[in-house]
């Protein structure tokens, strides 16, 4: 079915086989866990730093500015310098704060992003865990992040933080619905929750093209709702810097602040990657009908490149939103969800079910 020539399952399989030859099965699992963990840590840091740099550069160009240009050529190591600065900064303890929860909150936030990262299929066979309920798992994990935000706001013993946290709670709880429904659309189309299965089902065309207009609608809803779920502008009410100074992470400093900051960007990456996987075919190359030659050339582009470029395409759209629109008010935010997104996506899912039943999709 797949015409992909870059299959990582042979590579991972051979690593597994050679490790099994050397040690007992328990140790093999342990070594593989450590290896995957190390790879993810490196990847996490790299992507996080790059996304921060990208955001600053993109918004600078949109705002007719130059952006970071001092540290390194085109300011390319600016974010590394910022990270070092954040590492060296004092962790300011807050009096009358709940110490345990205050320290725990950034870790909860960052751990959930790690969990989300585990499910992403970067290329064929390059996926940490391939659950059969992958979509469900992502939904579950991504809604855990709000716990960290709520704890951060509550334990800071700051009024701004508390308002930010409660806003964030209301926001994420409601937008979870739309995200879930828009993901469900693809699940209905492909008939599986397994992410690798969803990608495989798009070998002959991406769902955004195959699924007619309903798939496009759910893609737009997914974009809007997931932007809201990761607390990014124009839905960044939880941190609303002009109202709440910095919202839930007002009282955090140093590396703990960096955790929140990094988690925000990683969330954006995860959401974009998920969107790319579900709607834009994941690591599947771009194929056009019967153009054999064209399709063949597309196959030569490595699957990981396809995946990353689709992800960054969605990231750019999310950034474009943020740097264009004003922030919504909390009641308008909820109105948008409950009056517009939710009814539309409910209707949409019924439509999709009908289409799938009739077998009208490609």
């Amino acid at each position, binding site marked *: 079915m797949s015409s992909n020539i870059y299959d990582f399952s042979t590579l991972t399989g051979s690593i597994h086989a050679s490790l099994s030859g050397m040690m007992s099965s328990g140790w093999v699992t342990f070594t593989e866990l450590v290896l995957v963990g190390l790879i993810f840590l490196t990847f996490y840091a790299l992507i996080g730093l790059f996304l921060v740099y990208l955001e600053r550069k*993109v918004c600078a*160009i*949109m*705002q*007719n*500015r*130059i952006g970071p*240009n001092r540290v390194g050529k085109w300011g390319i190591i600016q974010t590394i310098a910022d990270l070092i600065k954040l590492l060296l900064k004092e962790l300011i303890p807050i009096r009358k704060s709940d110490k345990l929860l205050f320290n725990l909150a950034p870790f909860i936030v960052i751990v959930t992003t790690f969990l989300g990262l585990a499910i992403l299929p970067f290329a064929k066979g390059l996926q940490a865990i391939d659950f059969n309920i992958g979509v469900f798992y992502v939904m579950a994990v991504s809604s855990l992040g709000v716990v960290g935000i709520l704890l951060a706001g509550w334990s800071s013993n700051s009024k701004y933080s508390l308002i930010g946290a409660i806003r964030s709670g209301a926001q994420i709880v409601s937008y979870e619905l739309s995200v879930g429904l828009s993901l469900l659309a693809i699940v209905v189309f492909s008939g599986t929750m397994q992410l690798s299965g969803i990608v495989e089902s798009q070998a002959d065309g991406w769902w955004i093209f195959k699924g007619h207009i309903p798939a496009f609608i759910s893609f737009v809803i997914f974009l809007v709702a997931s932007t809201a779920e990761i607390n990014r502008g124009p839905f960044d009410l939880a941190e609303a810097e002009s109202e709440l100074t910095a919202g839930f992470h007002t009282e955090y400093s140093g590396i703990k602040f960096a955790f929140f900051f990094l988690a925000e960007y990683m969330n954006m990456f995860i959401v974009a990657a998920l969107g790319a996987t579900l709607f834009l075919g994941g690591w599947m190359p771009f194929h056009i009908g019967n153009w054999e030659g064209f399709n063949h050339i597309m196959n030569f582009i490595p699957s990981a490149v396809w995946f990353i470029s689709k992800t960054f395409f969605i990231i750019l759209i999310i950034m*474009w*939103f943020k*740097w*264009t*629109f004003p922030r919504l008010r909390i009641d308008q935010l909820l109105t948008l969800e409950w009056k*517009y997104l939710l009814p539309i996506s409910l209707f949409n899912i019924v439509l999709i079910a009908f289409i799938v039943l009739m077998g009208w999709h490609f």
Partner: protein
Amino acid sequence: MNSIAKYFTDLFKGISSLWAGMRITGKYFFSPGAIVTQQYPENRKTLKMFDEFKGEVIMPHDENNLHACTGCGICEMNCPNGSIEIITNRVANAEGKLERVIDKHIYHLSMCTFCGLCVKTCPSDALAFGQEFEHAVFDRNKLTKVLNQPGSLIKKEAKK
């Protein structure tokens, strides 16, 4: 039915208005055009302030180390913040008459608000605004400057 039509027209209008905004930022993303930001420390060589720029008060000296300050004290009197202090001496001139000569024209840059009254009111045009603007120092005493250069004398024409 009317309300449903309104629902969808509102939705459409909303989305098109959002698109109008995104077109603007998108336009700048692909064609940034002229950027007004100055790359300051890099362009120090080419950076030229306007002639009228009020960087600091200076006392122009010519090539013979002559200035035009008679030490009349009008600038000191006109300064709203007391950032000018004038110390004068009485020196015997060629004809043996005692004459008022400026000893030190002290200028406290830290107190100056660049209102321009000293330059405007100076009867002999001895003061002017300099274009120097990099005034940051580590010791605020360095902001107190003596405007007349050591050993400088007054121009003949400036004497009344």
